[in-house]
């Protein structure tokens, strides 16, 4: 009897040890796998809003090293930043029902089911945060986590609030449609890239320096602009968002024509961000066809003279 009891306890002990070993191995392997991923500075396949936000801060840091932001230190700059952020926040909310389906956005990009679900579930940890770059260059950069940087040059290129809204809607779509992450994965196989800047800023290896190098890699990718397919998709989503927000969808065409004029007036440097965009005439034509085929109508109330004046007055007060 006593022997049987001992055998039973011994058996239970061994069984428990076997289970613990299996569970322990599983845990250990997963932790090692995760640590390995960060040491290689690869992006996870699925990430949380907070993760995107912290990555976005690092990417923004690199962007602000190249283009210093305006300092928000007086009534004028406060008004400018508040105006831009009210506009972006308004558009983001008003466009919550706008489709995020790659197929419905013109079928320019490919997403598998998980990626498409990721886009539909995408939320911004602190919302859209728009800052102004203190340069006359035409530049606009969206980062993961909701940072949107617009240059004075890009803002002043616009002649109305609706046109500025078109720029904001287009750039916001890069964030909401997860273009940065997708582009990074495709271009760099989700690994960090060595560059002069990353070597200068971060020496050594390991998870510590690799997080910083990842930010640099991503930011340098952002400087080059998104790929042509993503630009077409953003034009599509941006035009839909403008319509959903009550703005004139034709403002997207108008602002693209201003970019076209800018390109003709300036010798665009091959390294410049605009140089990586698809041909502007093709983009204009595609947006015009979209407006026609979808039957986007201008909101009559928003086109009343007093409404147009109210928008352009506040735009002028902020930036002209």
């Amino acid at each position: 009897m006593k022997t049987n009891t001992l055998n039973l306890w011994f058996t239970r002990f061994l069984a428990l040890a076997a289970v613990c070993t299996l569970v322990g191995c599983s845990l250990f392997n997963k932790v090692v796998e995760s640590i390995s991923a960060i040491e290689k500075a690869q992006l996870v396949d699925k990430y949380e809003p907070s993760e995107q936000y912290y990555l976005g801060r690092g990417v923004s840091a690199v962007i602000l090293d190249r283009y210093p932001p305006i300092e928000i230190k007086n009534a004028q700059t406060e008004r400018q930043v508040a105006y831009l952020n009210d506009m972006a926040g308004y558009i983001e909310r008003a466009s919550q029902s706008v489709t995020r389906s790659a197929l419905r956005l013109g079928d320019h990009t490919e997403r598998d089911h998980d990626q498409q679900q990721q886009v539909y579930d995408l939320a911004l940890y602190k919302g859209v945060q728009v800052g102004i770059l203190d340069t006359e260059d035409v530049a606009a950069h969206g980062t993961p986590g909701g940072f949107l940087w617009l240059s004075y040059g890009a803002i002043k290129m616009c002649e109305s609030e609706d046109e500025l809204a078109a720029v904001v809607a287009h750039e916001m779509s890069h964030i909401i449609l997860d273009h940065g992450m997708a582009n990074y994965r495709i271009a760099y196989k989700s690994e960090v890239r060595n560059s002069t800047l990353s070597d200068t800023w971060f020496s050594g290896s390991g998870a510590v320096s690799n997080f910083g190098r990842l930010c640099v890699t991503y930011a340098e990718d952002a400087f080059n602009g998104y790929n042509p397919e993503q630009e077409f998709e953003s034009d599509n989503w941006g035009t839909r968002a403008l319509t959903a927000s009550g703005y004139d969808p034709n403002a997207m065409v108008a602002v693209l024509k201003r970019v076209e004029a800018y390109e003709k007036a300036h010798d665009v440097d091959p390294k410049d961000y605009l140089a990586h965009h698809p041909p502007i005439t093709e983009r204009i034509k595609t947006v015009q066809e979209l407006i026609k085929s979808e039957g986007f109508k201008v909101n009559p109330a928003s086109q009343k003279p007093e409404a147009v004046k109210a928008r352009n007055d506040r735009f002028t007060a902020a930036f002209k």
Partner: protein
Amino acid sequence: MYRLLLLTAASAVCLLTGCAGSRGAYECEHRVKQSGSAHYRTYWEDGETVYVRISGEAPAAVLLDEPAPFADPVGALYFGQRLEVLDDSTTNYVLVSTTGIDEPASGWVWRPALQRFRLMASAGQTDRLETHGGEHAATILNEDGATFRAVSFTNPEREAYAERSENMRSALKRVDEFETGLAHAMGTRWRVERYREFGKAGGLLDE
């Protein structure tokens, strides 16, 4: 010995089956409606516990009195807050109630602001680990069922490590200054009210 081998084999089978079962349940819980874009959205069961996945500073971290983007705010939400789903029959919003030590309140919240797991900044006690998404992500569940990323960008310490670079430190300082200045410029009003006012003043939103 035979009994031991049998028991060990049974344990292994149970473990594997259990893992498969829990993953199956996980996927079942993440059911998706099979029509149009709704196919890709995550839906919840009535009575299910969910958690807020965005910062309390986010404009979307708010309970609204109606399932509409510019509805009136009725309460604030914070990161990691536990909520109970009351109604998940609309497309973009979910009716939830707050639980725990706070005064119970209910309202509509934007769907992507919610998730099944509570994210934590640090590990604490762990007893289970599941893959979450792809091969490079892992989610650890502690004894309360709370979760966090094993190694990822969630932890602000990761950023602090990056600050060991003098260049990165000074550049991140600019981001800090921007966020501080922006918060001051936007004030403490509900953002949803600001946005609604912006739309109405520009003739973009109906009165």
